[in-house]
């Protein structure tokens, strides 16, 4: 099977390791991966901040970039939700991309039909389900099932898991106090689990939480789900 990787702008510039891990994981599962170089950003930050007109060119660019691919895999629930839920308001061509875009865990579980991806990650991990994946895509148990099948991994329940971490795109900048208070509560909950790794499937949330963790010098690191799933006994991830 051949798929296109939609790496997302945040991963391209700030978290390329998530893109690399996604490629490594998919190839290990026998999937042929393409990276259409015309891709940039899905337009969600512009759209959610109220700049529909400025979003238009990015929607058209994204649609063109992935023309001809039956499956587009994106390691971000938020960007997948943008394409699936908001692209239809930009016309029929944009709407047609929606069903072809799969968030990573959807692709693994629904399209490939796997939950055990042969990963090995001997750490104590807690999982934060980001809001757009949770509520807009309805990812449900998919990430948890994938994590539970990882050899050596101890998955611990995150208290208040379904509460927003406080990132919210420009929300973090427009409402800095409330955003930081939400992030601090999320971190307190994550620390209470005793996990060494706070895992998520959306790096924008991890950018916010990771930044707070580093500022506070807490003994917890953030890691994208793809990087845990990419890790094997032969080739451990970091």
């Amino acid at each position, binding site marked *: 099977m051949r798929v296109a990787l939609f790496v997302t702008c945040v991963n391209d510039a700030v978290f390329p390791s998530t893109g690399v891990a996604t490629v490594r994981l998919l190839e290990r599962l026998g999937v042929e991966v393409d990276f259409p170089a015309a891709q940039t950003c899905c337009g969600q930050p512009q759209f959610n901040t109220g700049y529909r007109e400025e979003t238009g060119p990015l929607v058209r660019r994204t649609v063109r970039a992935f023309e001809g691919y039956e499956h587009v895999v994106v390691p971000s629930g938020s960007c997948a939700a943008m394409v699936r839920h908001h692209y239809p308001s930009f016309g029929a061509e944009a709407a047609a991309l929606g069903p072809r875009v799969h968030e990573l865990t959807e692709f693994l579980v629904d399209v490939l039909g796997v939950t055990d991806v042969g990963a090995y990650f001997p750490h104590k991990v807690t999982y934060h389900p980001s809001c757009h994946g949770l509520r807009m895509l309805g990812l449900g148990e998919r990430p948890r099932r994938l994590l539970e099948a990882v050899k050596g991994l101890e998955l611990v329940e995150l208290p208040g898991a379904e509460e927003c971490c406080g*990132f919210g795109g420009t929300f973090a900048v427009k*409402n800095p106090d409330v955003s930081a208070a939400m992030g601090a509560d999320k971190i307190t909950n994550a620390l209470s689990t005793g996990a060494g790794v706070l895992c998520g499937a959306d790096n924008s949330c991890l950018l916010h939480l990771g*930044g707070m963790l580093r500022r506070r010098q807490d003994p917890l690191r953030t890691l994208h789900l793809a990087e845990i799933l990419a890790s094997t006994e032969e080739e451990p991830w970091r």
Partner: protein
Amino acid sequence: MSDKKVRASALDEGRRSGDGRAFVGMPSFPEAAHEAVGDTTLRANLRHATHTIRDKRARAVAELDDWAALREAGKRIKDETLRHLDTHLLRLEAGVTDAGGTVHWAADAAEANRIVADLVRATGETEVVKVKSMATQEIGLNEHLEAEGIAAYETDLAELIVQLGEDRPSHILVPAIHRNRGEIRDIFAEKMGSWGRAAPEGLSDTPAELAEAARLHLREKFLRAKVGISGANFMVAETGTLVVVESEGNGRMCLTLPETLISVVGIEKVVPTWRDLEVFLQTLPRSSTAERMNPYTSMWTGTADEDGPRAFHLVLLDNGRTDALADEVGRQALRCIRCSACLNVCPVYERAGGHAYGSVYPGPIGAILTPQLRGTTSEIDASLPYASSLCGACYEVCPVAIDIPEVLVHLRERVAEEGGKGHRLEKAAIKAASWVLDHPNVLAAGERVASATRKVHPKRLPGPGARQWSDHRDLPELPAEPFRDWWRKNRT
């Protein structure tokens, strides 16, 4: 400005303005929230209260296996009614009139206040008792009556706490949610005496003693009052019947004991038939108080001989609602049945508190309703559509399926278009970013420069946006190369 000062000054402004916009002059949401976030007592009160009710609601809703169908039915009934609102309102007016009531139409807060004050004055009375009502708070009725020399006594327990404390409500259903028992005890002990019957000596902060103090204080008012003022949860067009749903029974007292009853109700509260109530009388209590059924449901149709008020007036309030109705995306906010489930699950409300929203409608529903009712010209109203991380928890629980995040984004578009404070700069920045993102070669060049200079990047940055981010968080360490370069080197 401290939270109390924010509250007090907003109150003063409201009294002065007298047009019901009781929060004119409020600071923007982020400014108002700043104090609340730092107030540990307030945070603890809100956290405890919202988490308790949110869990109870989830259990009450999970009991019904047809919840999704009820939610969809509620949405449809409201949408279809709103589509032919004029017809249903005229039918309601006929029903109320036939049953011996009088209907008054108020285009805005000032007109509604004037109508009510005239009606009270015509009775010769100088005091009224009130049932908890959002519409009368929206128009600032109490303040208006006070200016006219008429005392309005709130009889809902939480509203009483707010009124005695010279405070503002911070929640739709539990207006004093920001207060704990100790604070309430102090307010009762200190203030009850100057409003009527004083609190008993040595009042403690046990719920039973507090309720008893309120009961004694209020009973005196109920028995004396000749005029009652209420809102309504629903108005049934086919018979002209009004419905009030409540927990304490004080509403029943106000609706039945006084000789004159005046109800001020938003025009969107009409439903066509009694059958429609079947849906809402299930979804409202479960969503709001997590009860299968609320303790008191009062319904009345005009006046009746020998029973209840001799005179009944219904004031139908527009006050911005037809403007909201004209907005294809925004109009869904008019489906709201004021259950407050969206407040109780909202992580922003939990931390910012209700007062920061600068209106009687706080939380997610306030963030989409207030800017539609009042417009987006003031600082607070223009900041409300951004008072959300768009996490979607509100939409998930809303019993009439209002897509609050969708309306928030829609209103952000409106604010951005109007180009108020800060938005012209933002638009320019967004335009520039979009241009770069539409030119992958430029983007890649930028990414490479950022990566190459990463060792010298500071952890904190000055400047708008960047400072707010790096006040609380370290900036990420940038990678050695962007993903697209790794791909080029390793896969092509």
